[in-house]
C-alpha cells in the first residue's frame, strides 16, 4: 500500500516537527519528547487542560492546542498510548500552579499511563484531576478497553473544559463541566474501508468490496455488525438510532452534532450524512443548536464516519460558543 512517508519508525517524530513548523507562533515541542504544548504554556493562574493518545487521529489532539482549548497534547506512536514519563513532562510543563485537568480517552493503556503520570506529579505537589471520555455507544468492552471506548465526543470535552479554564475557573469547576459533556454525549462510527498503519503497510482488517462495518473503533478494532453496503441515509439511520437510543433525549432537547470523517472520506459524503442526520433529529423533535461537519478525530486513512450527539444546556452552549484559537478549530 502506498504511503507518503519516509520511514514508519520516524513518522510521528517527523509529523510533530512539521506541525510545529506550520504553527510556530502557537505551538512548541518539549525537547526530547513527543509532546506539543501551547507556545505560552504554562499560562499564569489558569487551570491547564491536557490530553493525548496514540497518533493517527489527527488533528486530534495537537490540532486543538491553543487559547480556549488544550494546553498540552502528548502523541504516542501510531495507535499506541503515550508513555507515562512523557505525560509527566507534559503536565509539568503546562501547570501554572492552578492545577491540570487530564482528558483521557477510555483505552486501558491511555488510562494507566495518564493515571501513573498523574500520581507521579501529585507526589511533587501538582494538583491534577481527570475525566475519562467513553462516548462510543457501539460496544461495551473491546479489544483495547474495559467499558466503552473514547472517541469523537472528546473534542467537545476539549472545547468545553478549555473554555471554562480560560474563564479562570477552578480545577474542580473545569472538571465538572468536562464530566457534564461526558455524561451527555454519545457517538457511533462506521467504516467503508480499513485503515492502513505505516508499520504494517496493509489493511488492519479485511472488509469486502461490498461490505461495511458498523460500530467500528478508531483503531480499526471490530464493531458490532458487518453488513452489506448501504446508502448514506441507511447508514445514517443506523448510527443515529444507536446514539439516540443510548442518550434517551426528551423532545425539545437541544443538541450539538458532529459528523466526523475518519480520514479517508470526502467532505461531500459527510455533508450528505449530515443532511439525513438533521432530518432524523427534526422528526424526533430534537433541536440542533449547532452542527459540526469535518475531520475531527480520524483513523489514518480509513473511509467512513462517526456521528456524535451531545445534549447541551445553557452552560455548555456558552462554553462551546466561547472563543478558541487553535490550528484545527477557531471560534470567534
Amino acid at each position, binding site marked *: 500500500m502506498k504511503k507518503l512517508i519516509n520511514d514508519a519508525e520516524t513518522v510521528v517524530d517527523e509529523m510533530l516537527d512539521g506541525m510545529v513548523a506550520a504553527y510556530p507562533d502557537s505551538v512548541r515541542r518539549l525537547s526530547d519528547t513527543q509532546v506539543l504544548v501551547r507556545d505560552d504554556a504554562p499560562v499564569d493562574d489558569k487551570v491547564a487542560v491536557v490530553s493525548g493518545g496514540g497518533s493517527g487521529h489527527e488533528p486530534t489532539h495537537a490540532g486543538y492546542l491553543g487559547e480556549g482549548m488544550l494546553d498540552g497534547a502528548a502523541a*504516542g*506512536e501510531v495507535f*499506541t*498510548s*503515550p*508513555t*507515562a*514519563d*512523557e505525560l509527566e513532562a507534559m503536565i509539568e510543563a503546562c501547570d501554572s500552579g492552578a492545577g491540570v485537568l487530564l482528558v483521557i480517552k477510555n483505552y*486501558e*493503556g491511555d488510562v*494507566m*499511563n495518564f*493515571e*501513573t503520570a498523574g*500520581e*507521579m506529579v501529585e507526589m511533587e505537589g501538582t494538583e491534577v484531576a481527570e475525566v475519562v471520555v467513553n462516548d462510543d455507544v457501539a460496544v461495551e*468492552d*473491546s*479489544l*483495547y478497553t*474495559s467499558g466503552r471506548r473514547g472517541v469523537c465526543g472528546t473534542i467537545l470535552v476539549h472545547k468545553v473544559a478549555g473554555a471554562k479554564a480560560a474563564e479562570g475557573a477552578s480545577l474542580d469547576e473545569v472538571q465538572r463541566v468536562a464530566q457534564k459533556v461526558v455524561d451527555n454525549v454519545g457517538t457511533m462510527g462506521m467504516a467503508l474501508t480499513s485503515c492502513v498503519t505505516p508499520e504494517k503497510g496493509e489493511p488492519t482488517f479485511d472488509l469486502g468490496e461490498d461490505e461495511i462495518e458498523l460500530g467500528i473503533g478508531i483503531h480499526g478494532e471490530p464493531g458490532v455488525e458487518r453488513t452489506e453496503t448501504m446508502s448514506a441515509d441507511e447508514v445514517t439511520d443506523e448510527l443515529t438510532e444507536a446514539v439516540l437510543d443510548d442518550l434517551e433525549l426528551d423532545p425539545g432537547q437541544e443538541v450539538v452534532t458532529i459528523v466526523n470523517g475518519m480520514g479517508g472520506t470526502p467532505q461531500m459524503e459527510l455533508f450528505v450524512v449530515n443532511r439525513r442526520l438533521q432530518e432524523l433529529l427534526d422528526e424526533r423533535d430534537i433541536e440542533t443548536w449547532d452542527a459540526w461537519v469535518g475531520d475531527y478525530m480520524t483513523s489514518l486513512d480509513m473511509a467512513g464516519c462517526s456521528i456524535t450527539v451531545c445534549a447541551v444546556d445553557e452552560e455548555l452552549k456558552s462554553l462551546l460558543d466561547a472563543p478558541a484559537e487553535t490550528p484545527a478549530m477557531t471560534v470567534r
Partner: protein
Amino acid sequence: MSPQRDAGTAAVAAVENVAARIEAEREHLTDLDSAIGDADHGGNMARGWQAAADAVSDLEDPDIETVVKTAGKTLLSEVGGASGPLYGGSLVFASAELEDGLTAESAVAFAETYLEKVQDRGDASVGDKTMVDALVPAVHTFKKSVETDDLHPLEALAKAVAAAEHGVSFTVPIRAAKGRASYLGWRSVGHQDPGATSTLYIMEELLATAADHLDTDVPSADASSPTSPDAEATEE
C-alpha cells in the same frame, strides 16, 4: 562497602538477571500472548528490561532505592502500553519503601506497595487471569513468612516464588476478566496468562540473585542489621 551499597549492587545484578531471563523467554512470552492478547508482551518486556539493565548499570554506587526507581522509570518509558505502568510505574512508587535501605520490614513494605499499585492501576483481582494471580499469593506468602513464621527473608522469598508458580498455573483454566484477553471471554480458558508468567520469571530471578549475593558476601560484621542486605532483591 556499606550494607546498603551491597543491596544496591545486588539490585543492579537482579535487574540484569531479569533482563537476561526475559530475553531468553521472549518467544515463549510472545507465544502465550499470541493466544490471548496481541503478541507483543515478549518483545516489549525484553526491550524494556534490557533498557532498564543498561540504565542501572550506568549508575555510580547506587543505593537500592535509586536502582529500583531507575529501573521502574525506564520500564515506564520503554515498555509503554499497559505493561509500562503496571510493571514499571508500580516499581517507581514502591521504590520509596526502600528509602532507608533494605531490611526485612522494608522488603515486605515494598512488596505490598508494588502489589497495591498493580491492583489500583489494573483494577484486577485474583481470578481475573492477570499478573495479579501470581503476585497476590506471592506477596501474601512473603509477608506471612517474614512476619508470622519469622523465616529468613531468603527462605520467605523462595516460598513466595513457589506461591507465584501456583498462581501462574491457576491462570490456565480460568476465564479472563481484565486486560486484553477479557475480550475473548470463554475463549481465553486453557491459556496461561503471559503477565502472570513474566511476573514469575522476574521473581525467580530475584530469588536467584538474592541467593547468589548471600553466598558471596554475607555481611557478618553487619549482623546487627535486622536482615541481610541481599535478601533485598526480594523486593522487586
